[in-house]
């Protein structure tokens, strides 16, 4: 054990230098820092270097501390790092704590007006004359506070070699081409750049050097991606209620749908969006719309999900297609609304009273947020059930570099819907809940069908094949078992797990969702440590046969959860009970994305290396 402590950390060795470092920026919420941070992020992206940004923000409108973590990684790592190579401290109230985030010998930039003590001697100090530079630019007094953050953009540009042209492009993009804010912000950035040029003479190991590694990439957050996926999935109906961190998903639909979903001939909208009075109503409208033949979705987070339980149970049992996006934050209760977790795996999978078990799609990249956005609508209609897309704050709200969105590879699938002429062909055999094809999926009609025999009475109470009320024991059991078989039959049709194998590996690691970025990085470190691991990223529940085989075929399997109790570990252990003792839970929750260092440390400890 003593050895493991002395073992050098490859993360520290390799992750500092040209195009491979991270910056942590501490500011005050509502001070306009997001513009400055996104400008740095976008400029580096434009210079062709893979980059990602994580916003660690408070549940607050203005005044509380907020941090932005930029990870520049030529190697493509996008997970959270524990410490940064460069810290920018603009917020007096976190000045002392921000010093702890810096690696040994790192660069500490700060507003020279902050009079707090500097506790460490190893840091390279860069006090910035923020006030003086801003004053020189002569901003309108209302703008002074909002533009102050541009000073660190200019100083960093000088220190790291970020070019002015991509900075200008980033600002033009941000301000949607409006000339005056672009000009004014550029003026501050140039003054700060000039100041650094004349006053700083540092030879830093951290540099940005242009590459061409982002030519075919886009920079986007998961909620925007999910919204676009939903729009390309042909949604008709969205109802939602504001909740952090899901809100930006329906808001992105509000932004893009009016451009993308207008009938070119008539100018009419092919969709409806309603902001409901609460989550009970949001999901109720979606169930009504799904029943009436609309591709309907809602988006929420933990507390809203709890309120949706009753209608979800109805959708499951009355076999109504709906899609629910769950952008997870930290629970229990109100928890940490602006921090990330994977704590709603169980509550989503089994949401609702009685025997329920839903289909869950679990994106692990923003690109998959787009893909699962449209796929979820297809699957909901094909299986006539509630389909959940389980995302989280880290994926949903942060900026990730990803491949461009790919146009849906399959046509829109409306499932087994009978219109007048379809019904006429099978009218003698048809019953709303009758399994005519032996695949557990019945045919459905939807309101508006004018065939005199098309109507049925949907209900959450016991019903027979013809949707008539029934309390008969065997009718009840047969129907509920058919629904279970129907959900189980989806296993092979859901997004398959992504498996990467290492020759000779006898142990495996299963992860899901946003931890993917950190896992990929950790696997590289562990390989250098001499730990061979096969990696399976689960992308859906119920789990596919491949995932269960993966568990059976390994001597030991780690299951990584960003929650306290190892919820996915529990679900998988129930699926393969004979291997339950060979499955090791790696579970951790503190509100932050899991880091590669943590994963590596846990596995090294467990493997006694």
């Amino acid at each position, binding site marked *: 054990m003593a050895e493991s402590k002395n073992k050098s950390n490859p993360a520290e060795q390799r992750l500092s230098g040209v195009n491979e470092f991270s910056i942590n920026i501490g500011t005050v919420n509502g001070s306009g820092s997001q513009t400055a941070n996104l400008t740095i992020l976008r400029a580096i992206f434009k210079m062709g270097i893979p980059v990602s940004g994580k916003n660690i923000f408070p549940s607050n409108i203005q005044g509380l501390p907020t941090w932005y973590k930029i990870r520049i990684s030529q190697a493509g790592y996008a997970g959270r790092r524990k410490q940064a190579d460069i810290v920018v401290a603009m917020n007096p109230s976190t000045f002392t704590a921000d010093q702890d985030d810096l690696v040994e010998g790192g660069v500490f930039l700060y507003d020279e007006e902050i009079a707090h003590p500097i506790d460490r001697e190893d840091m390279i100090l860069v006090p910035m004359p923020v006030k003086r530079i801003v004053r020189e630019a002569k901003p309108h007094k209302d703008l002074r506070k909002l533009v102050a953050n541009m000073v660190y953009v200019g100083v960093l540009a000088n220190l790291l070699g970020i070019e002015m042209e991509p900075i200008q492009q980033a600002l033009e993009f941000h301000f949607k081409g409006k000339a005056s804010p672009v000009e004014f912000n550029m003026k501050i950035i140039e003054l700060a750049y000039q100041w650094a040029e004349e006053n700083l003479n540092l030879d830093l190991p951290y540099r940005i050097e242009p590459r061409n590694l982002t030519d075919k990439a886009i920079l986007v957050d998961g909620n925007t991606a999910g919204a676009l996926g939903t729009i390309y999935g042909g949604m008709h109906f969205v109802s939602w209620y504001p909740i952090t961190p899901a809100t930006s998903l329906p808001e992105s639909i509000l932004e893009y749908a009016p451009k993308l979903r207008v*009938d070119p001939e008539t100018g009419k909208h*092919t969709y*409806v969006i309603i902001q409901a009075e609460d989550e009970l109503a949001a999901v109720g*409208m979606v169930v009504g719309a799904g029943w009436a033949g609309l591709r309907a979705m809602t988006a929420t987070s933990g507390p809203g999900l709890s309120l949706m339980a009753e209608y979800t149970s109805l959708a499951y049992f009355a076999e109504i297609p709906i899609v629910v996006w769950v952008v997870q934050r930290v629970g229990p209760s109100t928890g940490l609304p602006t921090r990330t977790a994977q704590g709603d795996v169980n509550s989503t999978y089994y949401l609702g009273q009685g025997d329920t078990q839903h289909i869950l799609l679990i994106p692990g990249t923003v690109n998959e947020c787009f893909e699962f956005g449209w796929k979820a609508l297809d699957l909901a209609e094909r299986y006539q059930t509630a389909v959940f897309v389980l995302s989280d704050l880290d994926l949903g709200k942060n900026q990730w570099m990803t491949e461009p*969105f790919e146009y*849906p590879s399959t046509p829109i699938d409306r499932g087994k819907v009978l219109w007048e002429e379809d019904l006429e062909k099978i009218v003698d055999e048809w019953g709303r809940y009758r399994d005519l094809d032996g695949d557990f999926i019945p045919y459905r009609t939807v309101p508006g069908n004018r065939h005199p025999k098309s109507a049925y009475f949907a209900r959450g109470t016991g019903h027979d094949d013809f949707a008539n009320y029934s309390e008969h024991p065997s009718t009840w059991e047969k129907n509920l078992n058919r629904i279970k078989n129907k959900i189980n039959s989806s296993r092979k049709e859901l997004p398959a797990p992504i498996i990467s194998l290492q020759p000779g590996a006898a142990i495996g690691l299963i992860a899901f969702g946003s931890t993917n970025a950190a896992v990929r990085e950790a696997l590289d470190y562990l390989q250098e440590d001499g730990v061979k691991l096969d990696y399976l990223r689960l992308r859906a529940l119920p789990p596919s046969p491949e995932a269960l085989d993966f568990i059976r075929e390994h001597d030991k399997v780690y299951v990584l959860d960003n929650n306290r109790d190892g919820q996915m570990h529990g679900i998988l252990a129930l699926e393969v009970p004979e291997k339950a003792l060979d499955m090791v839970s790696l579970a951790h929750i503190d509100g932050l994305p899991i880091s590669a260092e943590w994963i590596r440390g846990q596995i090294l400890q467990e493997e006694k290396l």
Partner: protein
Amino acid sequence: MAEKINEIGLSRADYKGKPSTLCLGCGHNAIVAQVIAACFELNIPPENVIKVSGIGCSSKAPTYFMDRSFGFNGLHGRMPSLATGALFGDTSLIGIGISGDGDTASIGMGQFKHVTRRNVPMLYIVANNGVYGLTKGQFSATAEEGLALKKQGHNRYVPVDIVWEAIAGRASFVARSFSGDPKQLKALIMAGLHHNGIAVIDVISPCVTFNNQDESFHSYAWGKSHEVALHELSFVPPVRAIKVDYAEGENLEVPLYDGTHIILKKLSQDYQPNDRAKAMKMLEEANKKNELVTGLIYINPQQRSLFDLYNLPETPLNRLKADQLRPSPESLDEINQLMY
């Protein structure tokens, strides 16, 4: 005698539902009968109707009329959201919601307020008996103060007036009737079915099993003796010869958006149902006198309905083809250019 056939060639049998499983004499059965009569007489094809309800005795009612209409028995207090979503599927459909006093005024008050505020075009009938029947006799929010029930003792709280709440909630058509007054109830249902917006009808519908004591205002005896009808009502469907048997000057015609109109024969009061503030004042005065006001209490045929607020295509949304729903591949290239 030959069976009566309406103008679209259907008989009353085409409007029937499953046999009622409600108690014999339940006011709700009378409501069901008038819904059937109204739809039959208005020549509404049953396939053009969506029936929705919540949970409770009242909410079972849609099973007992119009088998050929799609129906959805949803969740307790949450029928309004279900109806809102469903009606967007095909906005040419006519929504009929049946709720109860518990379903609307207790658990469902929130959704009730929002469905009225949004003016979702549908008929919203509250079968109001002041009591929970399916759970065997508890007070609902409309039960009057001091009412005694077998296991509950005396009701401590003041009641909710559904009509008052609907008007305050900006419903565009608000009426009250009594399940023992088939003529008035049918006229109101017919008018409600032609209203472009939400038509709330609070129907006092006595519970014969749990709440039919003579002194309860949800009882037959009380209703019959305390009912004050605002007007005598006639509903006039379009393209029918209008036969008015009221003297000029005594009648008030209220045109509905689709060319139909409702004729109110003024009785003792000079009441015009188009002023929200006057309606509320009238209700307050009637309450003081312990009177149960029935009739059309408030109407605004001009108020924009929920559908008027959306720029929807002529083709029902649920009949749009797949290629009308998915934007082009070129548009996605443009989107990818924006993602930075």
